[in-house]
């Protein structure tokens, strides 16, 4: 075995490498998260964490379970496909506990104008008005019931005034 006569230092060096590799495996075991590589080169558990973030918009199906009266008003009108939270804002808290989180009704002067103020940039078929000329300062809900804004179904508790229609 003359080949290995003076090779003691090489074996010691190789041993050092093996030890370092084992140490690397141990450290790696503790440092790399369990789910890393579950689906790809990333931490699989991150998907579940992102999916667990809180919801703030309840979704119209949730609103509809209680507010069936509003659904009946909306269903034949031009706002039938406008979801509740498009105007009323995020309401998941209210849906979870209706008494704790009271819904603040939106200001129609701001709300209606946001969509219906006339602008050349909007699609031609979309109903648009010049707010100042259109209502002479009257609030929108004088003539238009927000849940069913067509003038053929006027709001029952206010008399119909002739302020021009958004057609």
């Amino acid at each position: 075995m003359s080949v290995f006569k003076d090779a003691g230092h090489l074996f010691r060096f190789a041993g050092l490498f093996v030890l370092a590799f084992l140490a690397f495996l141990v450290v790696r075991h503790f440092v790399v998260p369990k789910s890393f590589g579950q689906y790809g080169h990333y931490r699989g558990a991150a998907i579940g964490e992102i999916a667990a973030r809180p919801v703030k918009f309840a979704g119209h199906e949730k609103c509809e379970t209680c507010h069936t009266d509003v659904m009946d008003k909306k269903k034949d009108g031009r706002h039938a496909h406008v979801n509740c939270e498009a105007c009323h804002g995020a309401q998941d808290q209210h849906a979870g506990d209706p008494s704790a989180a009271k819904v603040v009704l939106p200001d129609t002067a701001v709300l209606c104008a946001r969509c219906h103020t006339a602008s050349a940039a909007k699609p031609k078929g979309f109903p648009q008005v010049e707010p100042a000329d259109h209502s002479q300062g009257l609030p929108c809900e004088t003539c238009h019931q927000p849940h069913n804004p067509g003038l053929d179904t006027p709001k029952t508790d206010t008399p119909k005034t002739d302020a021009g229609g958004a057609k």
Partner: protein
Amino acid sequence: MNISRRQILILLPAAAVAWKSVLAGTPEASPNYKMSDHWWGMLIDISKCIGCGNCVRACQTENDVPDGLFRTWVERYHVSDENMTSPEVISPDGGKEGFPVAKADEGKYFFVPKMCNHCADSPCTQVCPVGATFISPDGVVLVDRTYCLGCAYCVQACPYGCRYIHPEKKVADKCTLCYHRITKGLTTACCEACPTGARQLADLKNPRDPIHEFLKTHSVQVLKPQMATGAKVFYSDLDGSVR
């Protein structure tokens, strides 16, 4: 060991049930949601967008997006008759509070809502040095906040400008396609809040999703198709001047 026929008849179905649960793998956050059954995208119909900014506000509320940064925003294009290649584009505060009134004059105006395109071959996930951003098995590009270093390579790599560094968390942040909602059977916050149905969440793996009928019967386009990103936000009625 002696097992009677009676014992085998009881044990075999039990073993089958146990094996089935092993095959099913780890349960996910939403119990009835299977990632392999979905491939998410979005449909944006330019001809329906009125530039109200509802989507931008809804997104900021739902996802606690810091002021001045956007996961989705709306741009208004003004293309003059003879100069199609240099449109005038504005997006005041991301279109969050709507747009100034446009007077009818020469050229055309239209709104373009923008967001992460959840690319199937996304440039942003390819450049991440630590595996903090990835495309999930159901086709949503996500960021792992605990793994992200905040190096912002991905912010530079996104050809659509859809990423930003969160000013407090110091990590990359972006549209998650409301992953916490779609895995619970809800639509995204922007789709929920859109009054005209200009935005629609689409599940390309669901054969009953109306997206398939729409894609068959309309001309649709993705943004920057020349970059071959596999973008999954489909635009209907998109003007050629949109970049």
